[in-house]
């Protein structure tokens, strides 16, 4: 046994990759702009790196899973994002994967006391 906390930095980044996809696709059921998403996620007790969120939004949009439009009516221009029908279908599939993974891990944790 070791009392040192392992460095999970890169593994956490890998785990976050899929999680962020689901999170953003779920969040954008209501139209939001980038900064409001960051604040909203922080309000939920999670932190997303700003420079990770925007490239992710761009990739999702490129694949047709979300759309965006600039709102120029306010003092500051804001780019609003919303999920598309294809994005909803993807979200459902990803949630299914996540639920299955959660079920498998839950079973293992129950079966093996040390986990």
């Amino acid at each position, binding site marked *: 046994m070791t009392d040192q906390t392992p460095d999970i930095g890169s593994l956490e980044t890998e785990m976050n990759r899929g999680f962020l996809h689901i999170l953003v696709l779920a969040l954008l059921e209501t139209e939001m*702009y*980038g*900064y409001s998403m*960051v604040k909203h996620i922080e309000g939920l007790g999670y932190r997303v*790196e*700003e*420079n*990770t969120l*925007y*490239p992710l*939004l*761009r990739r999702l949009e490129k694949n047709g899973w979300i759309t965006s439009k*600039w709102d120029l009516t306010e003092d*500051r*221009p*804001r*780019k609003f994002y919303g999920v598309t029908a294809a994005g909803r279908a993807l979200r459902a599939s990803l949630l299914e994967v996540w639920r299955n993974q959660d079920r498998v891990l839950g079973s293992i944790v129950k079966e093996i006391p040390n986990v």
Partner: protein
Amino acid sequence: MSDKLEAYLEEISHFLSGRAEREEILSEIRSHIVEKAAEGPGEFTDAAIDRAIAAFGPARKVAERYVDDRPIIAPAYKRYLVRYTSLLFAFHAFLTVVAVVFKKDFVVFPLLYMPRLGVVDALMYLPAAFLADLGLVALVLYFVTQSGKDVKLPWPKFGVDLDEVKPPKKGFWTSRIPTAIGAVVMLAITDFALYLFARHGTIFFVNLDWRDPRPLFTPGAGRYISIIVIAGFAASTMALLVKLLTRSRWVDVVSNVISLGLIGLLLRQPVDGLFAVRIPERAMASIKYSVKFALLFIALMTAIELIKSLVIIGRRNLSDKMKSDV
């Protein structure tokens, strides 16, 4: 608008050069930073902009997040880079030897132009040839990767794959018997050569009459060549003795490097005026080419052994690292 924000966006813009959506990306980042800086208890100040920029991260790191993850050479093809380059370079080196020996230039269309070379030219030419071969293989693998197809490239084996490098199954000393025999034989040869050299100043003779030996080479050249050859014997003996204690491939690497250096010294020795005995003019020309060819061939074989040892060391280190990571 803050000059610092514009400078920051300009820096990101620089790292995004060539991207069609660059302006859109910069607008998104500008909007985010302005939004963040305007929020909170303080005013919309330069300090607030600075904090928002610092939170967003260094410009290069930000730009890199927008770059596709697609590698230049796919991980599955990375191993081919070394193997194909080794193959191509071996072919290239062989042609270099041929060009030196036959004193001809030739073209293997469209990949290779081999100029007529002297020995020194060839030694200067080979590093450039290696870089050209590496570049060519990298280019082919780049196009294979970018095609996105599952191209199954052939995998020629040189006996350097990890699964072919099995640890000896025999006992410690049983596995070292051939090495020990080799060391004793080499030690005897080295001692005998040293004895001859101490007594006659050379180890090369025309006859085998030890009471009246006739040297093959002229005194200066004979001494020079003898010292190099004895040094080679001594290096081989030392390598075999060290190998009794360790199986490290580094012993082979050091031994091969010394051998290459000694062959280089032998190649510097001019053949004209070398022999102490009279040799017909026509035979002299053949001897000249044969000696150079033989030395270059030995150098090539030694270089291949050297590369092989280094590849095995690299692969073992990689394998050990993977095991320790697991």
